[in-house]
């Protein structure tokens, strides 16, 4: 753990819902509830979960775009949890982000050259001549034409824009890149190219990724380790290559819900009942218990801790030892 680049402990964030006459806080959307994660240097941690599970909020917290209510964020040996923005600014050089929507993440009024070069400009690391050269190099590196420099985002396709977004993120050769659903808005045929690009750049610049996605398949492909999030909490963590060995009932349901591109596949499916409960009022005990097919009384009252149950396997489940890897997983593996 000494190698960890990012270490977050008990990170918690709620968004107040105000109401009533005086605008008092009447409820709280508990977006992130006591998350512990650490990412080693050069590692890719995949963070997967359904919409509203708090995974994007977690990314925003680490980037300090929003302030946490409690917990600690230690990045590269420094505690940045409550660091003022002015002191944070130099640290931002080593922590960058790639967003989901390539249409929203690029300023439509700026040229691609200006967008990619902006981090260099604000950190005053190069002269303007050097900046241009750096941006040109990077354009080539991410697979764009040099002509792209003076063009505007609307002239590009979604995939090309995402390349621009990636170029902006890595121009300062950061240590950590938080990729928040970077391929979710892209077509399948483009998705692969962007994932490949992300992997190439990771090797080339020895980057570390926190890869956030709702798509377990994509996460499984790119990650070294996977963390599964549900209602603001980490449910299970395991090595990506051992997905079929993951035992948490939620992880298994997630795996089994993914449609497989094979019309002949006859598989026994776990279809979870009901909706994801509201994060305003999460269930007591294990937050998954209302939808869990194996829930027992203790699950309603007692909150399970994220405990180790195998080499590199952690889960928050009272009955993890009684669970076994679901047949779905192994069947998938054999296909």
């Amino acid at each position, binding site marked *: 753990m000494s190698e960890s680049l990012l270490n977050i402990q008990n990170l918690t964030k709620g968004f107040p819902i105000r109401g009533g006459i005086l605008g008092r806080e009447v409820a709280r959307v508990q977006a992130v509830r006591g998350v512990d994660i650490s990412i080693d240097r050069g590692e890719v941690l995949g963070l997967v979960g359904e919409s509203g599970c708090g995974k994007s909020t977690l990314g*925003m917290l680490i*980037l300090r*775009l929003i302030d946490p209510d409690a917990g600690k964020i230690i990045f590269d040996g420094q505690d940045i949890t409550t660091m003022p923005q002015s002191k944070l*600014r*130099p640290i*931002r*050089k080593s*922590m*960058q*982000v790639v*967003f*989901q*929507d390539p249409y*929203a*993440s*690029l*300023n*439509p*009024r*700026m040229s691609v050259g200006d967008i990619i070069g*902006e*981090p260099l400009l*604000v*950190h005053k690391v190069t002269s303007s001549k050097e900046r241009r050269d750096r941006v040109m190099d990077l354009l080539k590196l991410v697979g764009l034409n040099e002509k792209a420099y003076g*063009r*505007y985002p*609307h*002239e*590009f*396709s979604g995939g090309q824009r995402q390349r621009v*977004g990636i170029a*902006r993120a890595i121009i300062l050769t950061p240590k950590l890149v938080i990729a928040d659903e970077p391929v979710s808005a892209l077509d399948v045929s483009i998705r692969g190219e962007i994932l490949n690009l992300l992997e190439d750049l990771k090797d080339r610049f020895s980057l570390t990724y926190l890869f956030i996605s709702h798509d377990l398949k994509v996460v499984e492909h790119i990650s070294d380790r996977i963390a599964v999030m549900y209602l603001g909490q980490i449910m299970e963590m395991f090595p990506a290559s051992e997905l079929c060995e993951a035992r948490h009932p939620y992880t298994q349901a997630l795996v089994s819900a993914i449609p497989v591109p094979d019309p002949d596949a006859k598989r026994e499916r776990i279809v979870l009942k009901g909706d994801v409960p509201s994060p305003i009022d999460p269930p007591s005990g294990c937050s998954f218990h209302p939808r869990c097919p194996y829930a027992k009384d203790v699950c309603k009252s007692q909150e399970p801790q994220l405990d180790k149950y195998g080499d590199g396997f952690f889960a928050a489940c009272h009955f993890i030892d009684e669970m076994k890897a679901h047949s779905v997983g192994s069947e998938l593996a054999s296909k």
Partner: protein
Amino acid sequence: MVNERQTYASMIWRQFKKSRLAVVSLFVVAALVVIALLAPFIANERPILMRHAGEWSMPIFDKASLTLSELDVIKDSSSGDLWFINPPIPFGPTTYDLDSVLSPPTKKHLLGTDGDGRDIVSQLIWGSRISLSVGVVAIGIAAIIGIIFGLLAGYFGGWADMIISRLIEIMTCFPTFFLILTVLAFVGPSIFNIMVVIGITGWTGIARLVRGECLKVRGRQFVHAAVVSGARDGRIMWRHILPHALAPVLVSVSFGVASAILAEAALSFLGFGVPASTASWGSMLSEAQEYMDIGWWLTLVPGSAIFVTIMAYNLIGEALRDAIDPNMKT
């Protein structure tokens, strides 16, 4: 989809051009500006260029020099060596042609004269200076205040927003025209005061607009990306947020100039305008009231001038608004 090269401005211009009326309006406004700038050369009782007794002079710049009618007298006495170029309209706004008081449009006075024998065309031309400068300066002031307050409120939120929003609410509660009248009654009517008062009572719309745009843009991902890049607040406001608010502000400014011109005309009409020595379109209308029954041209001409100018600005505003409409294309 990959389109041909286009900047945002050129896209707006392409859409704008579709409205022929708006393009015509641009020409009208441009012509008005030229007329206002060149007013002394167009309508003047003194010659533009003159040679008298072997000396060249430009009497239009010299209030003390001879007027055309005086020159005519000299010319009639044929004291030789006298040569001059008349301005196209050989009357100043305060040239009293006592031979033709309340003259309807004639060859001499193309649009007639008023009750004091002053030429209407000349007054119209000189009056355009007041209308246009009031419109532009007043809205300039309003836009600057509006943009600054709007940005502060929209970007920083919290207390800044709280205070500015309340201020906007308070300002909008007063009937603007009544407020302008009241303040002018206290500070005294002058062209400068009119500009300032219209300006400081007219910023709320723009502030609200900029604040709204700001709130909309602030939550977008490219702004987050800029924060993560380490950009400071100033840069984010200037480079990322303001450009998005500019186009709607431009629309608002265009309509604003129209309403400022209207407000100035109304003030002059009520006798709260500029001092009587300088003709403005509104004061011309005000004076015309006396002769409503006999001097139809006195009402029709300045009113039409106000109307055409306001219409031009409104058409430009309308076409701009259509051009930046998000349903056209972004």
